[in-house]
């Protein structure tokens, strides 16, 4: 493993208690993702893909082991620090877009900037730039209900990148889209990786989607199995 890894998991264990049963998802997971990588994570349902993303994003905590991202050990951070760290370091894209229905596209994209010290004018400039990147500059004033699924997902991507995070975590970002929209989104993620240098970790069920990534990790029974893919 190389030392310049942006993401490093060492000996991570995670389980859940469901009623009387304790189920273990991972027992001793090691993973290193270098900066600038684009990783697809595949695996059967229930194998722990979303749980892995939650751990990487500081949404959930490991039971054992250490998680270090961009030089910060996040497994021991307090809730407040974790919030601030997440706002600065991570961009999330979900399967169901998760936009605020009462806010316009531009306002949705602006949300993460409310946590920064940027003034109104700078915020508007950042929002415009992010919408430009996802090709929705002309939809700034539209509400989510006025947009297609693919367009909503692009707004969600703009929201994920607007505060310029290093790491994008995407949980089945094309799971709810038709082939055409899915390809647009995937191409966009690929260009964010290639052109803007974002490190991307994407969970997907779709082998076609995984081909956009530089490599694919298969998660099954608590272990990774790696396949390099020629793009």
């Amino acid at each position, binding site marked *: 493993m190389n030392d310049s890894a942006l993401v490093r998991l060492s000996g991570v264990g995670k389980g859940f208690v469901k009623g009387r049963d304790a189920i273990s998802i991972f027992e001793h997971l090691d993973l290193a993702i270098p900066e600038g990588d684009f990783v697809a994570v595949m695996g059967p349902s229930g194998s722990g893909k*979303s749980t892995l993303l*939650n751990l990487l*994003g500081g*949404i*959930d905590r490991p039971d054992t082991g250490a998680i270090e991202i961009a030089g910060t050990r996040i497994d021991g951070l307090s*809730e*407040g620090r974790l*919030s*601030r760290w*997440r*706002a*600065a370091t991570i961009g*999330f894209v*979900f399967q169901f877009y*998760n936009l*605020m*229905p*009462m*806010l316009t596209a531009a*306002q949705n994209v*602006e*949300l*993460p900037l*409310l*946590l920064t010290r940027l003034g109104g004018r700078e*915020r508007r400039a950042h929002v415009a730039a992010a919408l430009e990147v996802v090709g929705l500059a002309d939809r700034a004033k539209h509400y989510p209900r006025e947009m297609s699924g693919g367009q909503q997902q692009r707004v969600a991507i703009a*929201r994920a990148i607007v505060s310029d995070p290093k790491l994008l975590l995407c949980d089945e970002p094309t799971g709810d889209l038709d082939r055409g929209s899915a390809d647009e989104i995937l191409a966009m993620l690929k260009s964010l990786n290639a052109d803007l240098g974002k490190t991307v970790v994407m969970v997907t069920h779709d082998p076609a989607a995984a081909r956009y990534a530089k490599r694919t990790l298969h998660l099954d029974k608590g272990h990774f199995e790696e396949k390099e893919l020629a793009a």
Partner: protein
Amino acid sequence: MNDGVLIAKNLFRKKLRAILMIVSILIAFAIFGVLAAFERAFNAGQEVSEDDRLVVVNKINFTQPLPISYFNRIAAVPGVRQVTYANWFGGYYQDPKNFTIVMAVEPATYLDITASDFAYDGAMRERFERTRTGALVGRQLAAKWGWKVGDRIPISSSIFQQKDGSHSWEVEIVGVFDKNKPQVDTNFMLIRWDYFDETRSFGKDTIGWLILKTDSPAINDRVSETIDKMFENSFYETATDTEKAFNKAFMAQLGNVALIVTLVVGAAFVTILMIVGNTMVMAVRERTREIAVLKTLGFSGARVLRLVLGETLLLALIGGGIGIAIAAAITASMRDSLSTFVPNLEVGPGIVLSAVGLMVALGLATGLVPAWNAFRLKIADGMGRG
């Protein structure tokens, strides 16, 4: 955009629900505003009463008369600096429904003792003392009927009648006076007791009550005791008390307004608290996923808590603000027609201030549970499985 915009957008995302909540809050605050205005107006008399003014009434109750001879006897009590007397006239103008406060008084001493409340100038004093049928009219009352100095008007009594059987006395307006304090009102008139007493068919040589000033409030108790002792076991026993206590006793006849206000307003607010509180809990629960998303974006628990509290506060301030404005409009429209019974009916700064306090309390109370739920929400739980 800022948190304020976010809060407002959240509140009004379901317009009908927001409007219904605002209307229910508004009604509670309108009720509060109107009742509080009545309560303050009723109590205003007590607040302005002077500490060193004592009132002597018949011990049976204050509607029973006292003999005029008490005036000189009380004036001679040590510690009494000034004393005067008055008689309730039971007045109306032209029609019994035009109820008018008229008091028959001894001119010189009455004006002296009430000089701190009302601005009687030297000329009107002099004319009142000289004119047996003279009357001094408060500015408000004069304005109500368009009376001016020099007018001769008939003033009728629903209690007394003249020896010739008439219920009406003709008086000449010799002065119109203003007030010295904002809390008192000038919706009444003074006529002369000697003119009234000589012409009435019954009750001759009696008075309604005496007002006296002592040398200092410190000796009030002693003076009161001396006076009441002096007339003990006589046919007309007296009860002497401060003007404040007297006004309070008078108000007690109108029922315990303050208690009614508290009960009605309390009931209204408990209802609102439950309705709005419950609605907000549900409204925020519907947004569980969105709150989880906000937290994912890096919003802290405290920030989310503030957003929810901000929303319930905004709701309470909008509803309460409109409600108080409506209360102000209602009291303003009733002010003139009720000024005889409840002078100075208004939603004043004191009421507005307590209303704002209530709004903040209501906003915080209704937001407490949903804000706490939002604060505690774990992202993974909020996003649901899958």
